[in-house]
């Protein structure tokens, strides 16, 4: 059933995928930037500062989605004890951390012209910082704890425990009075964002997702090579 997750089989696809992403990435980036910086209109209230949304929102989504993936994979690791899943989780973590940090930094830059401050002890912002701390703990536990089996166990516990923070981030703007605005895009309801702003947002999200896929594939390939090198004499 899990033969498709076999590193040997995946390895043959990695290079093809990397080449494919490289071939379309810059064209899509150019289109997305044109929409985000030129075509999309300024907001009636926030003016041109709204353009920060096109990098802030996809970064936040990727930060949240990556941790959710890591937490789910951690549960699967506990159930199936598959080494390959550990490699996948380890490859996703740095991407999630970078985008969580970018979300906080770009949010802070957006906050200055919008709220008049770089930082506020706001529920949404603080819970995003907590997410960043969970990412750091996950990465450090995998890097410094020996033996590897113990590191995997501890990092999985961190990921599953940290997953509690995900709904807190999502609903923080509804549960508490915060400076942060509520979600404008809803899957289960009517979105309040205009299509002229939604389209650049979707383009930027696509570009960021392609970038994440590229980094993930490169990191995953590195992990497979590292493991193969360890086992070279056993082959």
């Amino acid at each position, binding site marked *: 059933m899990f033969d498709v997750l076999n590193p040997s089989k995946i390895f043959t696809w990695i290079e093809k995928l990397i080449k494919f992403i490289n071939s379309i990435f810059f064209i899509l980036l150019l289109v997305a930037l044109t929409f985000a910086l030129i075509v999309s209109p*300024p907001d009636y209230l926030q003016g041109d500062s709204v353009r920060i949304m096109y990098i802030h929102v996809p970064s936040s989504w990727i930060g949240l989605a990556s941790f959710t993936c890591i937490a789910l994979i951690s549960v699967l690791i506990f159930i199936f004890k598959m080494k390959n899943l550990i490699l996948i989780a380890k490859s996703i973590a740095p991407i999630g951390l970078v985008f969580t940090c970018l979300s906080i930094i770009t949010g802070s830059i957006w906050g*200055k012209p919008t709220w008049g401050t770089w930082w506020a002890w706001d529920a949404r912002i603080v819970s995003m910082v907590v997410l960043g701390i969970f990412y750091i703990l996950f990465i450090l536990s995998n890097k410094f704890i020996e033996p590897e089996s113990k590191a995997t166990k501890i990092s999985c516990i961190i990921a599953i425990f940290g997953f509690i923070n995900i709904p807190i981030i999502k609903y923080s703007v509804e549960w508490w009075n915060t400076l942060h605005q509520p979600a404008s895009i809803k899957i289960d309801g009517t979105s309040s964002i205009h299509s002229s702003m939604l389209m650049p947002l979707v383009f930027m999200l696509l570009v960021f997702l392609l970038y994440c896929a590229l980094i993930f594939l490169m990191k995953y390939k590195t992990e497979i090579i590292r493991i193969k090198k360890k086992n070279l004499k056993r082959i």
Partner: protein
Amino acid sequence: MIQNFILMNGYGIFVWAAFAITFITCFILYYKTLKTLKKHEKDFADELNKLSSDQRTIVLEKSKIATKVLASYNKSI
């Protein structure tokens, strides 16, 4: 028009700073990831070359990954 595009009605400094930080960070992550990958490919190839020719042949016959990594490393040098 270009001036308006750069200044963005006074918000230019915030918008450009946010975009610059994002793209510089992404470039650094890409560069570091690529460098680590190349280093591991080189280490793997070095380790493979340390084996006797018989052992190396067996490894390359048995492991598709070893063959691909070696090919990729040879291409990059």
